[in-house]
């Protein structure tokens, strides 16, 4: 698992590579939270293009970050989840509060 960051004005783009389960979630949360606090970003885009697997631990990670972003009156979006990840997002209702975009271009225009 690996998290890498890009920025666009007040938006942090976090690209998560590999698998998001309970084991990796601890490090993922920590890295994203630190980065957001360090530069006081307002919005967060989770780029799931390279995410190969996610279980309900990922739902906790998304909702937790969503709460933080809400406090900043920011927006949060998900980009390009694979079919397995997308099903978890749909089953859990996450897509109703964190919109899902199939490509980064669309997400950046939304923010």
């Amino acid at each position, binding site marked *: 698992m690996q998290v890498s960051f890009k920025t666009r004005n007040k938006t942090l783009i976090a690209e998560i590579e590999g698998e998001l*389960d*309970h*084991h990796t979630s601890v490090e993922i949360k920590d890295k994203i939270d630190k980065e957001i606090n360090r530069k006081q970003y307002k919005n967060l885009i989770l780029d799931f293009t390279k995410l190969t697997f996610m*279980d*309900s631990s990922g739902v906790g990670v998304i909702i*937790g970050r969503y709460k933080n972003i809400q406090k900043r009156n920011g927006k949060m979006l998900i980009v390009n989840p694979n079919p*397995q990840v997308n099903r*978890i997002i749909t089953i*859990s209702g996450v897509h109703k509060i964190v919109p899902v975009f199939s490509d980064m271009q669309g997400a950046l225009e939304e923010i």
Partner: protein
Amino acid sequence: MHVNNEMKVEFLSKSSNESFARVAVAAFVSQMDPTVEELADIKTAVSEAVTNSIIHGYENTMGYVVVTCRIIGDTVEIIVEDKGKGIENIELARQPLYTSRPELERSGMGFTVMETFMDEVEVESEVNKGTRVRMIKKINGSR
């Protein structure tokens, strides 16, 4: 019912073994020629049950998680067991969004995911004795 093949894997309740459990079950089930989606469903359900044993069953203590896998015709049966603290109210535990550990950012969606991805999910549990989750799925495969 005739069991065509069977395996049992036992491992310490370390979170680094969650991915190991998924790979082991997927490698075993792959002899049934599942579709990519069926295999992803099974890996996800196994991940949920194994994670629950590690976080909720054993909390921060060490114990063994046992995953049994049986191929019976075109059906796979997967049993995930721990000898951890058990579930007091199984009906409540299975409700979507219910979690006893919100402080760990658990979503309470584990059982819902298992139920969605598998055909049958049975939970047996006794407080201070442990928990046993039995899941069944028919594999239609790509043939």
